[in-house]
């Protein structure tokens, strides 16, 4: 499931096929776009079938989805707002995935990041605004980083399966948040919905000028770009990709796999913690149960759909943010349960994972085989 992209960024100088190098260059990269897009379309088609089977109109559904998620400036802004935490939550899955780890507990890091940020924000009440926001960001990243970094450390030093442990840690994190928000950190004024004390208004993160979208979107996009640079252009990223391909080979090469795994998982958790901090500072204004809104789980889907490429996460997060945003409208206009969006996400997820089996199977994407069709299939 981990793709090695060692040849990326280096246009083929000598075409083994004799075809123009540019054509080969396009063909080699087209696979990574065409297969996920086809899988997405197939997933949507299967979902249409499902909707038709329950007696509703798929056309009306997709029209509503378009209108609710992408059709107007208002809905686009709504989708972008939802994409902001998804970008960071998806990085929490994508970064460890490049090392061959399947971490699915980003929700826990989001929740704890939010609680830590809210606690710091309230404790530093009165300090200058940039310092407080910076401290909140650091606290959120630290909380999330420790949480997921621990998953990575357990994986490497104790061989504890990271998929299961991260999800268990997510449940523990939510319990911890409930305990803190109901107990020591509770604002006595929050009656129906236990919350921490609200942040002072000056410490709230506002909107990007000219848009109804908070700055978290910019933070998320920057984090994705930085992650891309880290993975593709630095020696740590290179080492991580080697370790992700074959741990033993990496160890034989003398790479410090342990620190690499802990570092990458901690950074991944830090991004998810940052998402929690942004939810508190830009949306909720305090930490409460709304932090566990499922962004961590949708982030898993985003990361897999983007094939763990941080740059691809940006459009995919927008797409899924839009699907998410249209959920309410679908519910009202088509009289369908709110879980409709979950069904669609699950279907797309399954089809995307299934599509993995088609990589390397098509001659069109592999110029090495254009003149040697006999090689096709022999490498799978």
């Amino acid at each position, binding site marked *: 499931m981990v793709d090695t992209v060692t040849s990326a960024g280096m246009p083929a100088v000598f075409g083994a096929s004799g075809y123009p190098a540019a054509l080969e260059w396009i063909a080699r990269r087209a696979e990574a776009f065409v297969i996920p897009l086809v899988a997405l379309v197939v997933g949507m088609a299967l979902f249409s079938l499902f909707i038709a089977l329950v007696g509703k109109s798929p056309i009306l559904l997709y029209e509503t989805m378009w209108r609710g998620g992408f059709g107007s400036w208002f809905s686009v802004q709504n989708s972008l707002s939802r994409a902001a935490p998804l970008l960071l939550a998806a990085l929490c899955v994508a970064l460890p995935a490049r090392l061959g780890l399947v971490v699915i507990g980003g929700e826990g890091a989001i929740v704890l990041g939010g609680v830590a940020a809210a606690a710091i924000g309230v404790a530093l009440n009165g300090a200058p605004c940039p310092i407080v926001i910076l401290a909140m960001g650091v606290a959120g990243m630290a909380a999330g980083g420790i949480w997921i970094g621990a998953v990575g450390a357990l994986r490497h030093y104790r061989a504890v399966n990271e*998929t299961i442990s991260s999800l268990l840690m997510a449940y523990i994190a939510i*319990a911890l948040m409930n305990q803190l928000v109901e107990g020591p950190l509770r604002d006595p004024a929050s009656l129906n919905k236990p919350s921490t004390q609200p942040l002072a208004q000056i410490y709230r993160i506002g909107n990007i000028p000219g848009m109804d979208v908070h700055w978290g979107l910019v933070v998320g996009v920057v984090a994705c770009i930085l992650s891309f640079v880290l993975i593709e252009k630095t020696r740590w990223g290179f080492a991580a990709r080697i370790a992700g391909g074959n741990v033993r080979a990496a160890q034989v090469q003398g790479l410090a796999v342990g620190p690499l795994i802990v570092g990458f998982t901690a950074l991944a958790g830090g991004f998810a913690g940052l998402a929690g901090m942004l939810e508190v500072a830009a949306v909720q204004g305090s930490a409460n149960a709304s932090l566990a809104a499922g962004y961590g789980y949708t982030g*898993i889907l985003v990361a897999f759909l983007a094939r763990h490429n941080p740059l691809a996460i940006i459009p995919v997060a927008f797409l899924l943010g839009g699907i998410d945003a249209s959920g309410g409208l679908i519910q009202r206009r088509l009289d369908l349960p*709110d879980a409709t969006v*979950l069904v669609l996400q*699950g279907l797309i997820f399954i089809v995307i994972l299934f599509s993995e*089996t088609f990589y390397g199977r098509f001659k069109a994407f592999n110029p090495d085989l254009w003149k040697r069709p006999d090689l096709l299939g022999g490498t799978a």
Partner: protein
Amino acid sequence: MDATEIGLWGVPLAILGGAIRVSTPFIFVSLGEAITERSGRINLGLEGTLVFGAMTAYAVAVMTNSPWIGLVAAAFAGLCFGLFHGWICKFPKVNDIAIGIALMLFGSGLAFFFGKPFIKPKAPNLPAIPFGRWSDIPQVQAALDVNVLFLIGAVLSVILWWAFRNTRAGLIVRVVGDSSDAARAMGLNPDTVRLLATGVGGALAGIGGAYLSLYYPGSWTERISSGQGLMAVALVIFARWNPLGCFAAALLFGGAGALGPALQSVGVTQGYYLFYAAPYILTLIIMIATSSPTRSLAGAPGELSITK
């Protein structure tokens, strides 16, 4: 403070009763997962299967007024989920863990989608056998009300333990799980065996779900399962893929799960949420204690992706 009559003795009693009550879904899911993992695949989607099974059982029981038909329907739904997982994972490069995560989301999504109209109506429950009738103390009677599914689960774990060692089918599953090449050399098709093993595992998880909605807690809500399906997967590793171990571990987890409500019933409210997290913390501690980076786990199927 309804436990004043027997005071703090209510806590261990409630934990015992809770262990029996809470452990049943763990027993079925972990036995199912043990069969699947012994064949060399891991199905994390059992969490979704559990939720979908709970919804199916409840909906069918409401419509037919029979909990047993609901139970069969849940097992059938679980079988379908399991077969789907088994089928899709036979394709090269399709990752069984990732497909499990996807099925977890998909199963829950489908269950919430179709389960919406069934949140309100009341379904008939599965029967329990009152083993505590000899006692006059209501707490003892409550603790010893044992559901038939618990007994079936106990018997099933013994049968499976025996069958893995002594039957041809058990041997076939173990061979396929330990080495695909050896299985092929014996003329077995590993994909077919894994398909069936995952199907049976799904059916058992569906039964576990039926227990949730038809006995304890005994209603259908969207929060009916909070990771039980997933904890059961961890529990199988802890139990070393041994059905008897699965049964014992399920009881332990059930007891941990009953800790929060038991303490609450005697008036301990401090740290309420943390006690609710006890099963997760226990699972994590057990996983840390029983995993080792230097040696592979004793009894682990050789083809299993998580132990490689």
